[in-house]
């Protein structure tokens, strides 16, 4: 059953075995597991429920409906880093590219070392990772879905002799309509909207949409549920109070909103780590213009990744976005922007993704807003300059007539020699345009309360009955798209929580 704003009366109160706040990669799997175990589950989502058939390529509707704060969120620091999070049933899995990579083995070895537990090592997580891959039909793309931008990235990498790996994506018979970031209109992308959410609903779970959770209910030192208010979709104002009482509360709001909610209660005290260890895989965009039409909007988003520089923490991928998103991020407007955008069909947009070398922090900002902060390091700036120069060179030597760069001090190159001196820009951190969608690490799990926020099952050390299930749990950055890892942890938390709740019910 899906509930929306008009279903709530003033003072609406629900009761359940478990409440799961968030319906994305962290919330939906745990919700499905709990519901299928026979428990009474309520999933709470701040956004609305939108069917696959309602997805379309128009940003003025899709971004408003599917993305938190209309896509205006930004990490504060030098430079400012815009980011997007999903706000709809399915969360960010509805608006991501569906890239499904397992966490690299060295990362999991490091997690096992940091936590002192093999449970989060490669062998320990293997059953859940395999289950996620089966549940979301992880596979490479059908060749028929490849577009010219995919082909140009692959041929450019081949010309340079670089390693280019085909992405594995959570999709089934994706035909490459390239609307991933505004919701998959064919149902091929296996977001939680079409996988774990239907499973949870089929098993009897309720999904309370258009509810913003504002606080936890804490009674007798334990979590007893959540309280919030319904959101009127016409005015976006908070209206009726809604309260959900539960035996277990799972917070799965992502690495920014989860610590924001928990910090409001002064939690995370044993280690002081709540909100710290904020990781975000920042990336810079490089836009290549080819003389021939490319129509990058036709064909799958991110067929492959250039992994030649993986050891340096640098990945490249093509990632075309709709004109509205591309235009709004450019550092100019008017006729100059039109001159660029009128060549939209000749563009290949690529991302230079850099693995974090530092961490930031999420704080409770003024007026009830989350305040993520992050300072890009000189080492990262070197890697952005190196990555952007390499990708630009690849395109220019592959036939591009011009490449637009993400540096205010150097916006364009038409020949390889123009790329000389990019390294000199690395001292000007405010002058690089970055972006991110991978937010992680602000409620790190661990084996000891002295250095972590939750245990290895996501249970808060200092609030019984409250669990975290999202990318906040990551002890370190993973260097690849995090969806599979989040879902694997979510399944594990779901199974262990189900065992506990069923045992309590039996007792």
């Amino acid at each position: 059953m899906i509930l929306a704003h008009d279903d709530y009366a003033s003072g609406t109160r629900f009761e359940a075995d478990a409440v799961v706040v968030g319906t994305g990669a962290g919330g939906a799997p745990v919700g499905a597991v709990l519901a299928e175990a026979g428990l009474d589950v309520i999933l709470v989502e701040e956004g609305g429920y939108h069917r696959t058939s309602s997805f379309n390529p128009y940003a003025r509707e899709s971004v408003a409906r599917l993305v938190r704060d209309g896509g205006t969120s930004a990490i504060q620091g030098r430079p400012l880093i815009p980011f997007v999070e999903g706000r709809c049933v399915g969360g960010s899995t509805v608006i991501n590219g569906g890239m499904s990579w397992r966490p690299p083995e060295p990362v999991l070895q490091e997690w096992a070392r940091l936590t002192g537990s093999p449970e989060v090592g490669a062998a320990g997580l293997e059953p859940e990772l395999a289950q996620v891959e089966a549940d979301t039909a992880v596979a490479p793309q059908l060749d028929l879905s490849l577009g010219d931008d995919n082909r140009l990235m692959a041929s450019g990498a081949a010309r340079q002799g670089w390693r280019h790996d085909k992405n594995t994506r959570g999709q089934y018979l994706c035909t490459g309509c390239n609307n991933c970031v505004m919701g998959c209109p064919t149902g091929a992308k296996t977001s939680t909207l079409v996988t774990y959410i239907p499973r949870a609903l089929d098993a009897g779970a309720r999904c309370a949409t258009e509810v913003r959770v504002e606080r936890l209910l804490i009674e007798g030192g334990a979590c007893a549920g959540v309280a919030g208010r319904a959101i009127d979709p016409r005015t976006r104002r908070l209206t009726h109070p809604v309260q959900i009482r539960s035996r277990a509360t799972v917070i799965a709001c992502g690495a920014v909103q989860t610590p924001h909610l928990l910090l409001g209660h002064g939690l995370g005290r044993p280690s002081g780590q709540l909100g710290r260890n904020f990781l975000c895989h920042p990336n810079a965009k490089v836009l290549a213009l080819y003389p021939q039409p490319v129509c990058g909007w036709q064909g799958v988003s991110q067929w492959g990744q250039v992994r030649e520089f993986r050891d340096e923490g640098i990945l490249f991928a093509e990632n075309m976005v709709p004109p509205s998103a591309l235009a709004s991020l450019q550092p100019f407007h008017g006729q100059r922007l039109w001159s660029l955008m009128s060549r939209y069909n000749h563009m290949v947009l690529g991302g230079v993704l850099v693995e974090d070398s530092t961490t930031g922090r999420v704080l409770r900002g003024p007026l009830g807003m989350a305040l993520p902060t992050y300072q890009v390091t000189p080492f990262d700036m070197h890697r952005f300059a190196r990555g952007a120069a390499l990708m630009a060179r690849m395109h220019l030597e592959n036939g591009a007539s011009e490449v637009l760069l993400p540096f205010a001090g150097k916006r364009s190159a038409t020949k390889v020699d123009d790329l000389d001196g990019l390294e000199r820009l690395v001292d000007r951190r405010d002058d690089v345009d970055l972006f991110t969608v991978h937010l992680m690490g602000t409620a790190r799990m661990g084996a000891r309360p002295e250095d972590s926020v939750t245990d290895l099952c996501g249970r808060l050390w200092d609030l019984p009955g409250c669990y975290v299930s999202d990318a906040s749990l990551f002890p370190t950055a993973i260097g690849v798209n995090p969806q599979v890892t989040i879902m694997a942890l979510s399944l594990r938390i779901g199974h262990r929580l189900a065992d506990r709740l069923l045992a309590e019910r039996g007792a």
Partner: protein
Amino acid sequence: MPEPAAALWPPVPPSVIERPPERVAGPTPADGWPLAEPMPMGPDTLAALEGLVRALCPAPPAPWSQDLGARVALGARVFLRYLPPVLGRGFFLLVHTGDLAPIWRLRGLYRLRDMERDAADALLQRLSHSRLKLLRLMVMAARAAVLSVYYDQPEVHDAMGYRPLPFIQQRADLRRRLLDGAVPTDADRVGPSVEVTP
């Protein structure tokens, strides 16, 4: 390729995209979840916003008309509803600050809305390079709010040769055929691209 569990996917994939542009443009889509109403604005703020829209959007031969400008301003007002309330209100301040830019930049006693389009465009471009981060952010926010709507309009898409709906519809139909057991042919491949004639 593993077969997914049947229960996980809708038994019949959608073959019709329910949101053609004429339905997206309305303030209340008919899929049960309405878009927010436009943020109310007084006539002076609205005139200032329309001046900002005119300064940021390209002049002909790019698509431009009074009606298009009004739709962009309307779209920006809907967009404001989705911001955190404090930022939504901050946008009002931004609109008036931008409108008064000629005065506080000591260009003269007139407002942005009264300037020639090219001159207004150039003034905002200079502000975007200001040494004051706040001013740079102000222009960035105005661009995001206005240009994301302008570059989302059907006539702008047409002029760019970007026609996503027929393409999405064709790929949705193809997926339905594949799910029904059809074997793909070379004709089902994407591209190679040809220039789409506006």
